[in-house]
């Protein structure tokens, strides 16, 4: 156990990931987000998320790597509703990573929490440790009614029973962009070359994705916005998602 902790401490040294090329980050401007849920379906299509069915949904076993949460304030008629998209925060100090007994979830060199499906033994501890509730467990091997399986994205694994899964920041798109950059003889991916499915679909451009190590990237500029904050910041998970607080005017 002690060796594990030592190893962990070594890797968790602040600034460790600055040595690497990328620190993928997403900013979500809550002043733009309308809660229209385009991102939810975009993610479903891109990442081969199954339809769990009414009965399983009723047991809270839905598979949605990104969801829209709602928060009410006040009482009728002075009532306000606000939306916030919730997805894996790709924490730098991720509680899920220390939980996994088999290192199925680990931190990769780009600062992503990655989930290795064929290492996962399904203890579900990571989901318990996650304060954002964005990890989803395959209680069954879900089927696609023929011919819906023809839509499945060949770049993304179809998971089976007993495996935990979650948002990957569309790692397949990151890989493709890196490969394309390599083919072009470039060392780095240019800003804007990677857009996860949710970011791509967002009508209001509430979401911006990019590399925080590049101070000139769009997302770095967004992250410096004074409205920026992390959800549940006090837990010191240092998320890779920066939310921009909604602007409130009285009325």
């Amino acid at each position, binding site marked *: 156990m002690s060796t594990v902790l030592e190893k962990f401490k070594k890797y968790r040294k602040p600034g460790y990931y600055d040595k690497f090329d990328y620190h993928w980050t997403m900013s979500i401007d809550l002043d733009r987000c309308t809660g229209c849920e385009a991102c939810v379906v975009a993610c479903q299509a891109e990442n081969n998320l199954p339809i769990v069915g009414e009965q399983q949904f009723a047991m809270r076993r839905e598979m949605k790597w990104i969801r829209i949460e709602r928060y009410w304030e006040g009482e009728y008629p002075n009532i306000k509703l606000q939306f916030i998209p919730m997805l894996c925060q790709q924490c730098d100090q991720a509680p899920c990573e220390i939980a996994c007994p088999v290192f199925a979830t680990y931190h990769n060199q780009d600062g992503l929490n990655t989930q290795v499906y064929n290492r996962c033994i399904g203890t579900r501890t990571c989901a318990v440790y996650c304060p954002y509730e964005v990890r989803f467990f395959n209680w069954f091997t879900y089927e696609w009614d023929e011919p819906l399986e023809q839509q499945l994205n060949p770049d993304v694994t179809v998971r089976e029973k007993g495996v935990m899964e979650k948002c990957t920041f569309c790692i397949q798109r990151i890989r493709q962009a890196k490969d394309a950059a390599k083919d072009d003889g470039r060392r780095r991916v240019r800003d804007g070359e990677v857009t996860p499915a949710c970011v791509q679909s*967002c*009508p*209001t451009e509430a979401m911006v994705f990019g590399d925080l190590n590049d101070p000139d990237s769009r997302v770095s500029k967004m992250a410096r916005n004074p409205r920026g904050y992390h959800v549940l910041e006090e837990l010191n998970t240092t998320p890779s998602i920066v*939310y921009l607080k909604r602007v409130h005017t009285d009325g």
Partner: protein
Amino acid sequence: MSNKINRRDFLKFVGAGTIGAGAGFLAADVSKMSTEFLIPQVNLPEDYSPGIATWYNTVCTLCSAGCGISVRIREGRAKKIEGNRSHPVNQGKLCAVGQAGLNVLYNPDRIKTPLLRDGERGSGSFRPIGWDEALTTISGVLGTLKIQKKANNAYLLSGAVSGHLNDLFALFMDQLGSQNYLQHEFSYPASLYAANKACFDEDVLPYYDIRNSKYLLSFGADYLGAWLSPVHHGVSYGHLRQGTGQRGRCVQIEPRMSLSGANADEWIAARPGSEGMLALAMAHSIVEQGLYAGADAGDWQQALAAYSPASVAGPSGISAARIVRIATEFAAASPSLAIGGGAAGASTNGTANLVAVNVLNFIGGNIGEAGGILFNPASTFSIDAPRPRAGYQEMLKLFASLSGDDAEVLILHDTNPVFTLPSSANVAAAVMAVPYVIGMSSFMDETMALADIILPLDTYLEVWGDSIPDPGVGFAVASIAQPVVKRLYDTRSAGDIILALAHQIGGELPANMPWTSMENYIMEMWRAVYQGKSNDSSDHGFRKFWLSILESGVWGERSPQQARPRQAMSQAMLSAVHMTQPSFAGNESEYRFVMQPYLSLAFQDGRGANLPWLQELPDPLTSVVYNSWVELNPKTAAELAIHEGDVLLIESTVGSLEAPAFIYQAIRPDVVAMPIGQGHGNYGRYASGRGSNPIEILAPETDIDSGGLAWSATRVKISKTGRRVHVIKTDGTTRDLGRNILGPGHGHA
């Protein structure tokens, strides 16, 4: 075909894969790609390479907005739909419904072959037949009518189609000798068209420039949810909020908070039907304060005299001070924009309400201004026949003729009026009264089940076509649709069916409709557009143009805004302004609540309910999935001792239904609301037998000016049935409770 393939050929095929990616004209080659051979890739299409995606541009027709889409194809299969970046309507973005289009294409419940009725009419029992038999039978029936000079007894009722398919339908019916071609869509805003006709003498909707506005005042129009062109509005909204240094303000006036209401800075729960009075009171206040610049301020003062904020406060439930404050803000902000729609346009005084909103825009000086109302130019396409869209009154007239003795044949194309019209319209009975009913659809539904013969249609991802977005974007735009995958089943496009029928019916039809296929027809029509615009009659020039528009998926032409004489417009508006009190079916003492059915973001008028991704998509405002619900104010619920999940009986003067209660925080206590979309009886495995359809129990009230269905003019009473169900939703605690989830210092317990 030779099955021999040597290494050099193989490398050549793989190498060719990157060439021409995105050039849409090759889609037909891809679609002919055979999968039946052991080595299907011997004759590899030029743009096809294993492992590398190809993108084709086409147009989304899942609602009327007409967004351009790019479809990602891998190994001949559609994998992902994204917005077309060069399309001015959606600018690369797409809504939840558009993304779920793959569920339409690969839906397991698609009709796969032509079907012939096999049993009693309406029993839903069909047997498969071949296309030859189906087309011969139908052309025989229609040909006989034509010869007997009784073709005017044939009717074509279509869902919303624009562009050349609309032209083809119109031409076919005309050539057949019938005047009876109509389009039906539940969400067709008849009152909005009527109001704009009355105020501006416009037949097409203007462009609401939300993007550049600084103050957006919406009277019931859920512009971010289901009103007109939600993706375009979403793009504009993002810009309005954070696109410039000066953040635009949004105010929403509606009895039940919609998605747009939730995003507004201020939500005002006015009484249903009082929206127009509020708009006139605001105009009154602006004129009174001397903020209206026109020389005819006196005329307006007189015309608006009856609508002082004080006198409107009572009927609307909004205080005079608040009306004046909003009016002052509206006049001070520059540019500002008022829009109206949704329930405001679906009251018995719907057109009057929307005329009043136009008046407010006029008084606020927003007409013809960037950030206000801009007019779409007259279509610059030589084609684009007017669309014969029917309001509720015209539909009733149609059903009366269908029930009469003369009606012989009804052709239904991609429309489900049995579901989307109130039960009091007796749609099913009218359809059953027609001796011969032909259905054209990709899916079995409540209306198609009544047909004698059903022709299975390609989905929108398998067809040639074009569409003209309505509303436009301030300049002339057309989108080109092309097949992005090989068709999955033995289906055909509506255009190909119409052309095949024309050829088989004979007479002068083949000469007047000489096209061999829909692809050929679309291409020839675009050749005419090209030649008209360019004076270039060479085939080479057209080919180049055609390839470029297929590749980009869109073609447009910017034209300058025409200035409108202010005085004449003022006169027209002065004579158009009028107001009547809204009326509701059912007396208030017995039927306590005004029923507000609303278009579901995912299902729209119910057509999306057979898509599994949308069934499992939480409703944005309640997070409920898989069922219907009826929304009640917490106070109302407490008073009647109703809790979430209590199954309620909802009765109007014409019918009743059951639905579980959902306590909704932002709805007037005297209003109940229900989403439209569920309640299908026969619409595939994902939709059938879920929830209930609020359209069914709507009273047959209409907007007096436009004849559109006043779907917000029905009163209901509610009672508990004693049963309870579990309302399936994703939400847990919907209060922040000091967790600062929405940002530091934001959350209140």
